[in-house]
């Protein structure tokens, strides 16, 4: 039983990290209806830029700020060169455009900073919490706990931003109805830049946390793929869904690996979340918290 809880908590904490990636998707999908496949590449780019500046001798905070500036520039360019010309195109076209964007960002990131794996030290030790180890014998990493704390803080910040500020209200208006938002004088283009910058910020935080964990490397781009079942479970347009979905995926994939894995030869982590999401979709096609779609002829 104790082992079960150890796996469960470990999975939940890993799930928080998935939620962070999924959050970046949800932000952009809500505001612009674009399914941004490039989020994983953005995570990679943000983390790599930070590490690159650090290796040039820039202090951590400045490096992170510079990376954020780079993400803002990226948001401007994306809006100007990709989103604006493609406005009013079918969603699928925009989705494919973001796949193109993914390749572009990956190429630029590696061209600028090189392709080798960089270590990133945030000053948080990745070791078990002794207090918990002594009391219950469970092995819970301190790093995971801090990362979840940061994630929780980020989500609170975003919730405040969305609900309590003028810009946040405009963002929600655009998410609800593009044309109505335009009619009351909200600039779509400005909102898109803001929302892509916000997603860039989320990508930066995600990239730093994952990078500190596994090293800043190309594999970070695959995070996007980890986030997809999370999105499907939670619904594409719900922040709460991204978080709950992340927790479910994190916990279930670790449990499945431990309890089902040995019977079928292991390595099922790669596809289990997808099959889980698929089974779930058959019951609720719009995810846990997603908006129900009504078709009209």
């Amino acid at each position, binding site marked *: 039983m104790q082992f079960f809880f150890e796996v469960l908590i470990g999975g939940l904490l890993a799930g928080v990290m998935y939620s962070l990636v999924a959050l970046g998707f949800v932000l952009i999908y809500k505001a612009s209806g674009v399914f941004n496949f490039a989020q994983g590449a953005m995570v990679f780019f943000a983390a790599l830029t930070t590490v690159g500046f650090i290796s040039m001798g820039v202090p951590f905070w400045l490096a992170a700020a510079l990376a954020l500036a780079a993400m803002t520039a990226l948001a401007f360019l994306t809006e100007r060169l990709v989103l604006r010309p*493609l406005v009013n195109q079918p969603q699928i076209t925009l989705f494919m455009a973001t796949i*193109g964007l993914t390749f*572009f960002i990956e*190429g630029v990131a590696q061209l600028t900073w090189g392709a080798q794996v960089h270590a990133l030290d945030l000053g948080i030790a990745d070791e078990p919490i002794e207090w918990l180890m002594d009391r219950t014998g469970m092995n819970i990493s301190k790093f995971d706990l801090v990362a979840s704390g940061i994630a929780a803080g980020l989500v609170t910040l975003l919730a405040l931003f969305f609900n309590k500020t003028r810009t946040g209200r405009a963002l929600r208006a655009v998410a609800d109805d593009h044309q109505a938002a335009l009619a009351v004088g909200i600039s779509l283009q400005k909102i898109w830049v803001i929302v892509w910058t916000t997603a860039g910020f989320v990508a930066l935080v995600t990239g730093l946390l994952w990078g500190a964990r596994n090293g800043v490397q190309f594999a970070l781009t695959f995070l996007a793929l980890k986030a*997809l079942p999370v999105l499907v479970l939670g619904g594409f347009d719900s922040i709460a869904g991204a978080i709950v979905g992340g927790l479910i995926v994190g916990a279930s994939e670790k449990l499945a690996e431990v309890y089902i894995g040995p019977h079928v030869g292991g390595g099922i982590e790669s596809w289990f979340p997808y099959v889980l999401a698929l089974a779930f979709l058959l019951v609720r096609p719009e995810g846990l918290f997603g908006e129900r779609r009504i078709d009209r002829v």
Partner: protein
Amino acid sequence: MLYRETGQFKTDYASDQQLFPIRQDRIAVFVLLAVAYVGVPLAAQTPGLAGAIDFNYWFSGVLIPFLIFALAALGLNILTGYAGLLSLGTAAFMAVGAFAAYNFELRVPGMPMLLSFILAGAVAALIGIVFGLPSLRIRGFYLAVATLAAQFFVVWALTKFGWFSNYSSSGVITSQKIVVFGYAVDTPVKRYLLVLAIVSVMALAAKNMVRGAAGRAWMAVRDMDVAAEVVGIPIMRTKLLAFAISSFYCGVAGALYAFAYLGTVEPAGFELDLSFRILFMIIIGGVGSILGSFLGAAFIVLLPIFLDLSATSIERSFGFALPSGLVSNLTLIIFGALIVFFLVVEPLGLARLWQIAKEKLRLWPFPH
């Protein structure tokens, strides 16, 4: 002037509905086929040319992959372009085809090669139907994610279960020798002709299918599925048929990929990257166009070769070596930029540009 259908009267329904209603198109297609079937192999036999151009490289490095990818793109185009169901699992269905063909050859004594290709396609079609079932409930991006489940599951299963690869290490299979009707297909030219024959027959079949009842039902479902249902198109059958036929094409393409192109494949060779490459082919070539599948495949196969060649020639003419990472990263950048560029400039792809060119040609030299 030349390309004008004036005077070509259609007197019955059949002639109005034929595949290429304009005589010049028919001639062009026949010329193209003649060049592909006779001209290219003959050129390879000509001693003078064979010395100047490395035909073995052209056959096994360019033409064969082009035809195979075109076939896979054709399969994806049926699903995504005609039936409107976005799939990111193309490579998985190719993997199913490749491993199925290998196992049929391995386990059934005296199995004719063509039959095992067909059966490989059928196995892929079955798997396609299984993973297509969710499409009845879900659509759009949710479906794309569901097809990713196929992608990861198939690659995992082929790696994990040794039976599929006859218990070789890490699932690597080496294809058997291709023998068609007792005739060994062993040189690049022969393999090229075999692939060409299969691809042209299947392309013709696809062209026929999309103008017939099945194709029209697919397009109706793509454009608005609720409306299609209202006018009496069985949604379930139409969508599953699209999945089955698309997977059949991908399965045959996968079998050819293993047997006629690479010879040795492993499950890891059918990763998501390959699915994306095929998706790019249909985006750049033209979504919902048979011709587009070929144009897109040609583009995606030729672009890296072209970039490689230009990098080499730059190195040679300036006398310094480019860093090895530079070229591959530049390829990524150019690839990504081109995709965005194509979507912005012409969302319907190269096939649409070709169509516009034909429209212009019809009126030339007059503007209207």
